[in-house]
């Protein structure tokens, strides 16, 4: 852990990590709204559409001032969003086609401008190409401050309009019917999402940034049914991805930050989809198996009980195949479970089974319970 200690004591690395944590948190938290409003694809279009804005802003201003570049990205990201809705409204194209068009056209233009910028004498200093796949180590202190400022502004705005944003995300029609300025709030929320994307571009890159918006949010959704928890968890997962990415790429040379951040976020999401207690696939599968087994054991128990109900000796052994007469097939594994539960025991060498005292009681209870409902 010596390397890590040295890494953490380095001021530059600490600053970069702070920046990555905050941009991850902002992206993860606002990503939840993008996810719930089905704007995930829009996020991808926005981040690609921001590239020409960054390049043109640099071309015009000649400076690498983060605020200028962010403004450029914001402007062209927004233009992209407006174009998407203009295309869907005025043509017969569906939204996904409009998104695809805007994404590729803007990205293409961005690449062209980037080539032009790189031909300029001052290009080496700019290093704008890092905006493609992101490189957190190029972040200077002022970049990090810009991220902190804008990220916090986003989060404060989110907190201030929390209940309004929640309402327009769940039921925009109802929101509008109560007189809330639904269009304005919608625009504000989309702007916050654009902003969350834009501040991550330098570290994560336009190509992969949308993954940092979608993946932590999707992971968070697996764990809670309360919007506040989902948003906080989304932020947490985003921040974890950001910090992890920054640390890994700082400790290994030539490892780009963006892809590492996104890989971490994706792994988190995959784990969440598989393992989350309530919505995860594995726990769900186990619950399914367990409940089938429970129903199966109850049915067999009841059938055994019916076989011996009128018998003077209720514990007389029976051939398990006799259950077939009542349309049941007792799988060996199910019988084994019932033996474990102490409801049934094997008797004799022929593999016959009989109810135990406990099983008999349980069966009576089970049948009585059904009759009562």
């Amino acid at each position, binding site marked *: 852990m010596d390397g890590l200690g040295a890494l953490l004591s380095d001021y530059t690395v600490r600053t970069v990590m702070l920046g990555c944590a905050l941009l991850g948190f902002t992206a993860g938290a606002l990503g939840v709204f993008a996810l*719930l409003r089905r704007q995930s694809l829009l996020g991808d279009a926005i981040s690609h559409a921001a590239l020409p804005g960054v390049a043109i802003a640099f071309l015009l201003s000649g400076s690498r001032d983060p605020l200028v570049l962010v403004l450029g990205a914001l402007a062209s990201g927004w233009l992209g969003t407006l174009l998407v809705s203009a295309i869907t409204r005025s043509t017969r194209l569906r939204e996904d086609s409009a998104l695809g068009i805007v994404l590729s056209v803007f990205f293409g233009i961005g690449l062209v401008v980037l080539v032009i910028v790189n031909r300029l004498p001052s290009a080496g200093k700019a290093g704008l190409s890092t905006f493609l796949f992101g490189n957190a180590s190029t972040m200077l202190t002022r970049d990090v401050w810009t991220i902190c400022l804008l990220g916090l502004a986003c989060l404060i705005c989110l907190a*201030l*309009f*929390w*209940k*309004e944003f*929640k*309402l327009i*995300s*769940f*039921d925009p*029609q*109802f929101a*509008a*019917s*109560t*007189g*809330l300025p639904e269009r304005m709030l919608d625009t504000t929320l989309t702007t916050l999402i654009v902003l969350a994307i834009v501040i991550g571009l330098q570290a994560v890159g336009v190509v992969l940034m949308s993954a940092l918006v979608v993946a932590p949010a999707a992971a968070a*959704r697996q764990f*809670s*049914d*309360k*919007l506040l*928890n*989902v948003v906080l968890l989304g932020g947490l997962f985003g921040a974890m991805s950001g910090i992890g990415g920054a640390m890994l790429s700082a400790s290994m040379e030539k490892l780009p930050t963006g892809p590492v951040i996104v890989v971490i976020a994706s792994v988190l999401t995959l784990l969440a989809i598989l393992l989350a207690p309530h919505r995860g696939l594995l726990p769900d599968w186990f619950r399914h198996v367990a409940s089938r087994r429970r129903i199966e054991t109850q049915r067999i128990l009841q059938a055994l009980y019916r076989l011996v109900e009128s018998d003077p000796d209720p514990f007389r052994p029976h051939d398990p195949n006799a259950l077939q007469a009542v349309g049941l097939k007792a799988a060996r594994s199910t019988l084994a479970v019932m033996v474990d539960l102490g409801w049934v025991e094997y008797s004799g060498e022929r593999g016959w089974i009989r109810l135990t005292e406990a099983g008999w009681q349980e069966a009576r209870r089970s049948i009585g319970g059904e009759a009562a409902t």
Partner: protein
Amino acid sequence: MDGVTPAIRVEDITVAYRENPVLWDVDLEVPPGVLMAIVGPNGAGKTTLLKSILGLVRPAAGRVFIKGEPLSRQRRLIGYVPQRSSVDWDFPTTALDVVMMGRYSELGWFRRPGKRERELAMQALERVGMTDFANRQISQLSGGQQQRVFLARALVQDSEIYFLDEPFAGVDVTTEKAIVGILKELRERGRTLLVVHHDLSTLAEYFDWVLLLNVRAIAAGPVATTATPEMLAMTYGGRSAYLMKQEGGDG
């Protein structure tokens, strides 16, 4: 109706989505304190009419007055139950939380719902018989339970004029009766209700007024005198029917 300001007054509303008009020159006056149904075939424009009264759809022409004033000044008087299918029920929120949304506009900007909102919401949930489900995630409710939650959210708005879009869609008889009971109770307390309804067999039993709609307003008035077999045939009979009405003058 003379002398009484109608609760809702719609003048010459025309709505077109692309080129085809969906509502054509609809006039409507809803007297205060009635439980009124909007009836008509699928695609007749019932939802669109509600939405344009509520200002959710911009009409190509026409005006709406709520108690004699433009809608923008009367938002507080309005309660709305949208069609259940209009929202994503997998949204991470609980029944109680959805009901509290009915208080948001009353709360105003920057104020969080608190104890009082929670109490009001619990009362509303109790009225619709959903107390036990207050903390359920909304996707784990049945269709009828979801509909009750939506109704509770409107109740908590404590409005004078209610708009309900197909509150009986996909609910069982028990829930339907429960909802009707609440609607009638609201009417007894002087509220006005405009309800999109599909089942003609219960029309007279549930409602006292009716609007027959099929792109045009075919007829409006008390159920007994308005929903006559001829008028219903005209409403559901398709295009030729309302051309006949045009030729025959006012119905």
